[in-house]
C-alpha cells in the first residue's frame, strides 16, 4: 500500500503536466495567437510565468513525493529529531522572493501600456474611433458623424445629431491604434475580446478608454465578462477588423442606412452618397 500511495502522489503531477502539454493539440488553449502586439506580450508573460510555475510545481511535487517515499519507507527506529534549520529558512525565503520581485517588476510596463493614459499612443488618445455603451444585454456602438469629405469627425463625449449607431457589431480599421470609449448605461459589464487579450469593465458613471492595435483581419468575438444579470451570457457581439478603406466604406454605408428615408433602396442611397 505504501508503494501505491507514494506512486499516487508522484503519478498525479506527471499526469497533470502531460495533460497540460497535450492540451494545445486539442485546442484547449488560447483561441489562436493574439491579434494585437500587446496581447502577444501578455502571452509571453503568461509563458514566462508558466515556465517558472511549472518548474516550481515539478520541484515541489517531486520533493513532496520523495519525502513521502523516504518517510514511509524509513527503517529508523526514531524519526529525525530536528526543529528546523535557520539556513534553509533563509534560503527558501530569499530565493522565491527574488523570483517574485522580478516577476512583479517585469510586468509593470505592459500594464502601463494597457491602462495608463500617458502611455497610450498619442494618435489614438486624441481620436477615439467609437464609443461602446454596454447595457442589459447588448453593446451599443456610436461612431462620430462624417464630414463632407466622408471623413469621421471628432467623437464627442455627448451624443451629436449626426452620430452613427449600430448594435453588437463593432468595426475597426487594421494596423493603427484604435481607441474606444467604454461606457455603461445600467450595471457593470466587461468588454472582453479574447482574441485580442483585452478586457475592461464598463462602469456606470465613468468613461473608460481602451486602446488596441489589431494586426490581423477577421471576425472576432466580443463577450461580456462581468456578471450583469440573467442575460450575461448572451451579450454576444463581434469585432470586425478590416482594412481602412473597408472601414470607411462601412461608415458611409451606416450613414446611408441611417439617412434612409424609406423610399429608395438603402444601397441606392449609399451609391448616391459615394
Amino acid at each position: 500500500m505504501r508503494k501505491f500511495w507514494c506512486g499516487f502522489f508522484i503519478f498525479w503531477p506527471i499526469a497533470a503536466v502531460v495533460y497540460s502539454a497535450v492540451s494545445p493539440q486539442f485546442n484547449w488553449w488560447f483561441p489562436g495567437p493574439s491579434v494585437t502586439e500587446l496581447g502577444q506580450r501578455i502571452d509571453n508573460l503568461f509563458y514566462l510565468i508558466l515556465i517558472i510555475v511549472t518548474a516550481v510545481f515539478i520541484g515541489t511535487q517531486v520533493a513532496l513525493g520523495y519525502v513521502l517515499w523516504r518517510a514511509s519507507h524509513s527503517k529508523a527506529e526514531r524519526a529525525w529529531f530536528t526543529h528546523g534549520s535557520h539556513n534553509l529558512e533563509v534560503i527558501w525565503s530569499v530565493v522565491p522572493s527574488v523570483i517574485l520581485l522580478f516577476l512583479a517588476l517585469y510586468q509593470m510596463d505592459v500594464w502601463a501600456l494597457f491602462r495608463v493614459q500617458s502611455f497610450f499612443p498619442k494618435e489614438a488618445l486624441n481620436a477615439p474611433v467609437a464609443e461602446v455603451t454596454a447595457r442589459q444585454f447588448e453593446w451599443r456602438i456610436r461612431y462620430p458623424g462624417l464630414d463632407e469629405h466622408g471623413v469621421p469627425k471628432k467623437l464627442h463625449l455627448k451624443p451629436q445629431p449626426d452620430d452613427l449607431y449600430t448594435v453588437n457589431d463593432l468595426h475597426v480599421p487594421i494596423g493603427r491604434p484604435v481607441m474606444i470609449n467604454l461606457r455603461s448605461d445600467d450595471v457593470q459589464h466587461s468588454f472582453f475580446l479574447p482574441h485580442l487579450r483585452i478586457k475592461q469593465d464598463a462602469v456606470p458613471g465613468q468613461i473608460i478608454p481602451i486602446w488596441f492595435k489589431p494586426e490581423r483581419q477577421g471576425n472576432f468575438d466580443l463577450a461580456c465578462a462581468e456578471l450583469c444579470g440573467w442575460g450575461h451570457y448572451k451579450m454576444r457581439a463581434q469585432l470586425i477588423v478590416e482594412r481602412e478603406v473597408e472601414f470607411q466604406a462601412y461608415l458611409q454605408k451606416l450613414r446611408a442606412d441611417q439617412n434612409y428615408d424609406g423610399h429608395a433602396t438603402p444601397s441606392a442611397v449609399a451609391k448616391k452618397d459615394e
Partner: protein
Amino acid sequence: MHDDHSHHEHPKYALIFAALCVFTLISIMADVVQLPYAVKVVAVLSVATCKALCVLAWFMHLKFERAWKYVLLAPTTILALGLPLALMPDVGEHYYTQEVPQMDDYAEHLEHRKHAAEHHGEAEPE
C-alpha cells in the same frame, strides 16, 4: 474580579472634562469665524483628534494600562487610517472621466445663472 490597578492616582476627570468643552468651543468658533476652508478643515480635525486622545487616555484609562494597549490598538488604528487612504485614489479622485449627466448639466446651468446674475448686478435667484 477587581483589578489591581483601580486604585491608581485619581486623574482629574473634571479637568479633562473642561478641556473637552474648550475643544468643542474651539471647533464651533472655527465654524463661526470665517477661515479659509483648508485651515478650517485641518483645525477642526486636529481638535477632534485631541479630544479623542483625551477620551482614550483618561476616560478610557488607556494611560494607565500596560503594553497590551499598543498590541491591541495598533492594528485597528493602522487599518482605520489605511482604508480611507486606500479608497482615495479610486473613489476620492477619478482617473477616468466621470460622467453624471443630470448633475453635470445642472451644475453648468447653475454656473451660468450665477454668471448672469453677476453680470446684471442682481442677487442670485433663490
